[in-house]
């Protein structure tokens, strides 16, 4: 399997960084030139939410893709994708707090308690913060085995993200259903692998830890 060299990896990362900024650039341009249609706040909310879900799916796709192809270097892109997911969810949250609710704390508290789609969305947003905060190499070393435990929350976050989208649409569930299928597939691959490994005698649970060592 092809492995990129140092400079090649740096180039790949730069391109990925630029690509992840495209939706943001589009929104900035759209706001500046009033090109986001009749309801720009809705457009920004939808776009930032959509890209958060897309990037969450992308981080979840890294491991299955790496295992399927043997392209272990993909793992080196995962942190950046995850942090961009966090970047877009922060924008999404700020859009809600500022442009949609206009800092009306009472109204937002009511929303979070009363409306299931906001409850799960807000929970997913809160759960994502520790993942972003512990994404550095230093934090990873400090947390040791706990690092993985913390980062397994991504599975729950992705499920909550899909529910958040699913429960807010009025009638046409096509898009949330597609995200739901993707997340279900990506989690299903993991589940079936871990079940198969548990069934193998002599390797109790070893597969998951080994899978994460970049040198494999």
């Amino acid at each position, binding site marked *: 399997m092809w492995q990129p060299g140092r400079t090649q990896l740096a180039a790949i990362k730069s391109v990925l960084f630029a690509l992840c900024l495209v939706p943001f650039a589009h929104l900035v341009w759209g706001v500046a030139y009033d090109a986001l249609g009749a*309801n720009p706040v809705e457009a920004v909310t939808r776009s930032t939410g959509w890209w958060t879900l897309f990037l969450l799916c992308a981080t979840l796709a890294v491991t299955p893709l790496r295992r399927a192809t043997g392209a272990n270097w993909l793992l080196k892109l995962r942190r950046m994708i995850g942090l961009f997911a966090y970047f877009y969810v922060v924008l999404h949250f700020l859009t809600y707090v500022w442009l*949609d609710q206009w800092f009306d704390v009472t109204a937002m508290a009511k929303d979070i308690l*009363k409306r299931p*789609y906001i409850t799960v969305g807000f929970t997913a947003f809160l759960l994502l913060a520790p993942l972003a905060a512990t994404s550095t190499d230093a934090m990873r070393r400090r947390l040791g085995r706990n690092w993985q435990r913390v980062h397994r929350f991504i599975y729950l976050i992705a499920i909550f993200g899909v529910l958040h989208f699913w429960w807010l649409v009025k*009638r046409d569930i096509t898009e949330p259903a597609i995200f739901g299928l993707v997340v279900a597939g990506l989690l299903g691959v993991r589940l079936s692998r871990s079940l198969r490994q548990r069934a193998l005698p002599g390797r109790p649970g070893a597969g998951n830890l080994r899978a994460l060592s970049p040198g494999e």
Partner: protein
Amino acid sequence: MLIRKPSDVPPSEITPRSVYLRRREFVKQALALGLLAPVMPAHAQPATAQKLPGRPSAFSTTEKLTKYEDVTGYCNYYEFGTGKSDPSVYAPRMKTRPWSVMVDGAVRSKREFGIEELLKLAPMEERVYRHRCVEAWSMVVPWVGYPLAELIKRVEPTAGAKYVAFTTRVDPDTMVGTRLPVLDWPYVEGLRLDEAMHALALLTFGLYGEVLPNQNGAPVRVVVPWKYGFKSAKSIVRITFMEQQPRTAWNMAAPSEYGFYSNVNPEVDHPRWSQARERRIGEDGFFTPKRKTLMFNGYADQVASLYTGMDLRKLF
């Protein structure tokens, strides 16, 4: 009847017709020169819209009008797709001639009305109404039409007529949205007879002084300004008078979310979102907070008496 006119917006703030027409003039000129031809699909070319003037009405609000582009480009019309811009893309292909409306059920003179006959039935009025969508956004639209009561009186409802149902056309060839069971087609909406007879309920044929663009419900729709937008059925082919409350599209799709009445009410939330505030399209948004939603969309003085003694939380 007491008619109050909100006068907090000076007339000087209302977009003059010459200004809102300017952009369309530009588009027409560009089309004439063939400039937009490479970027515009054939069906998106604006037909030369036929004029449909109406005399001014005391029911009109003096609030700032929502831009023509937004009124015609940001629509919910699921027969043409669930995206807000889908109707403006797909609806122009729908043929609105010939067109007729069957009026039947509990009336003395049931019959079919041709669209030309309906257009001449009563003098046209321009009514500038607030339009509040159940999704918590709103517009101000200069509709052209006449009171629905004008038609109802002519067909003479019998004593058994308690409700009116409006049926929207289903044409899978042009209404691409109806190929999917998003709603139970055809789209049916309804009103209680006294609601339908109310002077504010408008049988509508135009907006901005021209015939309705297809995406806004051509060639004939109703506009019921004190109710959420989905109550105002578009592209009507049948009006049926009945004794029982009709089964309506959104109510059947989600009975706990969309009641039969669906009067605009800031105190009764949609189960999934608040109805206390709304975003006025083109005005509230970036750096302006959403505005408070008014009871009955600001038409309480005119319509509240229709609901005396009713628990509007239960009959939402």
